[in-house]
């Protein structure tokens, strides 16, 4: 279709206008969160669009040992989940992606089905299992429980990726005398960078953000993760609700994720789509 020059310009303006609307809609809440977190004391209750750049809220929240502790907990849990789920998934993906054996398809199906399990359906059984393992009210309970949503997904994505690696490279390694373990470690792993980054990031984000298990399997403040900590911040009455502190805590939790989202946008998107849009 041929458009006139003015028509094209209008079209462009309209599209950029829409871009702006979408960006505003997406970003304004963040702006407001950060702006509010930078207002001190009662100033937060005056609606002004510009922040005061007062860091009282941050000082308050960061001097609170419990919040720092929960940040550290979240970090430990997320990092362990990434390491463990990737380690397990890489081995499983080699089996599923490169070896033709009877039972492959049913197992793929099993993993897919497990990834669709609603977490709530496992809660009572998992509760029992975690107690039995002696993990109740420890970070270990979360690392263990988070395997439900990270492991099948990682296996799925990495299997697809492994399958796309050239067969002759593996065969060359076999002829060179490599055991399967060595093939995975020395040949495939270095070739899987992008897929590992994608799945690792997604596992990190999912574990960092999880709420239901973190709320249920952790009993005491010093073992909580950040989302629960933020959800449980409360004031003595409705009118003393510490929104400034909550906004500061939220900002602290969000910033690493925003940085990650901006830096690794490509990997996150490709991981998401690899998991969902299978060709």
């Amino acid at each position, binding site marked *: 279709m041929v458009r006139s020059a003015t028509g094209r310009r209008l079209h462009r303006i309209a599209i950029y206008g829409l871009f702006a609307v979408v960006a505003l809609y997406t970003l304004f809440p963040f702006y407001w969160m950060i702006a509010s977190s930078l207002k001190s004391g009662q100033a937060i209750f005056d609606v002004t669009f510009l922040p005061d750049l007062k860091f009282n809220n941050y000082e308050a929240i960061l001097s609170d040992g419990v919040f720092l502790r929960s940040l550290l907990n979240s970090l430990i849990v997320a990092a362990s989940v990434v390491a463990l789920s990737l380690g397990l998934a890489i081995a499983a993906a080699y089996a599923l992606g490169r070896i033709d054996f009877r039972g492959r398809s049913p197992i793929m199906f099993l993993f897919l089905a497990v990834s669709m399990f609603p977490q709530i359906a496992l809660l009572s059984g998992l509760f029992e299992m975690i107690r039995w393992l002696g993990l109740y009210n420890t970070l270990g309970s979360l690392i263990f429980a988070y395997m439900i949503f990270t492991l099948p997904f990682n296996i799925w994505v990495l299997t697809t990726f492994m399958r796309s690696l050239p067969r002759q*490279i593996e*065969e*060359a390694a*076999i002829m060179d005398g*490599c055991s399967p373990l060595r093939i995975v470690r*020395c040949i495939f792993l270095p070739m899987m960078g992008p897929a590992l980054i994608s799945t690792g990031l997604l596992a990190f984000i999912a574990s960092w953000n999880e709420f239901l298990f973190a709320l249920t399997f952790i009993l005491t403040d010093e073992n909580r993760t950040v989302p629960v900590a933020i959800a449980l911040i409360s004031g003595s009455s409705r009118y003393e609700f510490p929104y400034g502190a909550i906004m500061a805590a939220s900002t602290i939790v969000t910033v690493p994720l925003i940085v990650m989202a901006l830096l690794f946008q490509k990997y996150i998107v490709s991981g998401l789509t690899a998991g969902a849009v299978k060709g």
Partner: protein
Amino acid sequence: MSGIDLINVVKRFGALTVIDGVDLAIAEGEFVVFVGPSGCGKSTLLRMIAGLEEISDGELRIAGSRMNETPPAKRNIAMVFQSYALYPHMNVERNLGFALETARLPAAEIRERVTKAAKFLKIDHLLDRRPAQLSGGQQQRVAIGRALVRQQKLFLFDEPLSNLDADLRMEMRVEIARIHREVKATTVYVTHDQMEAMTLADRIVVLKDGRIAQVGTPMELYERPANRFVAGFIGSPRMNFLPGMLVREGEESVLSLAGGRHRLSAHDYAGDVSLGIRPEDLILGGGDATLEAEVLLVEPLGGESLVHLNVGDGRSIVAKAQGRPEIRPGATTVVGWNHTRAHLFDKDERALNPRGA
């Protein structure tokens, strides 16, 4: 001792039989080439020797021992792949030394062997590069080098040169011949390229539909193809075939073709046959036997020309002539051959020989 024996080897993929009872003995130090049309099972047979495919039935022996269940790494085999299959994240030096590293050889020895192989293949100036920084020919050299450093007695090649352009292919062909001369490893080589097969092979194995159609030296296959398939497959341009009928007449046999009758020495066989004559054996204007033909096209190739001829019934044949013959398309000419250069095949496509031959 590092010969290879294939004893009634069979490969099935599910219900599909891909290799159907292959018997073959490869002597130590021999250079054997597998040829055959695409999908005939060359790679599969090679991969069974390597241990990359399981053998469904029959036995594989290397140096006299059964190898069916032996894992590839323990068969003392080095293999070069069509896609080179270099490890993309390792530099040339590590690519070459990786197998030795896996076998936990001392670093000094690895270095020495890698350096030696690299010198031998003239890639010693590339040791620091990654595969992606190499040309196709250089990658091929590294792939061969990777096989060489292991100093195995057995080399397998699966179409190693088919990703190279014509010049490089020739160069690497000479290189592989040199390596074989110097290393003297038993070699099995799969190719599509007749030139490679004819120049490199001690013996050629022609495969068809998972069976051996013929085994022999290049000249045997060329001079005395055992069946019509091999006759057509070996030689370029391919052999011309004309249908005919062979009848016994006393102490002689008579071959009737569309264009005439020809007396031959006595054959035991009588019935439908096809006559095969290579383009280079056709003589424009002469020979023991002749046919009338119409010139369709002359393709000059420089030193020689291909003359396409219509011999009636819409059948066309190709003759190879020296230089540039003085004939024009549309002209009528006589084309002939000598009986000693003619091949006869019975209705089952087996080669026919005169009685007593």
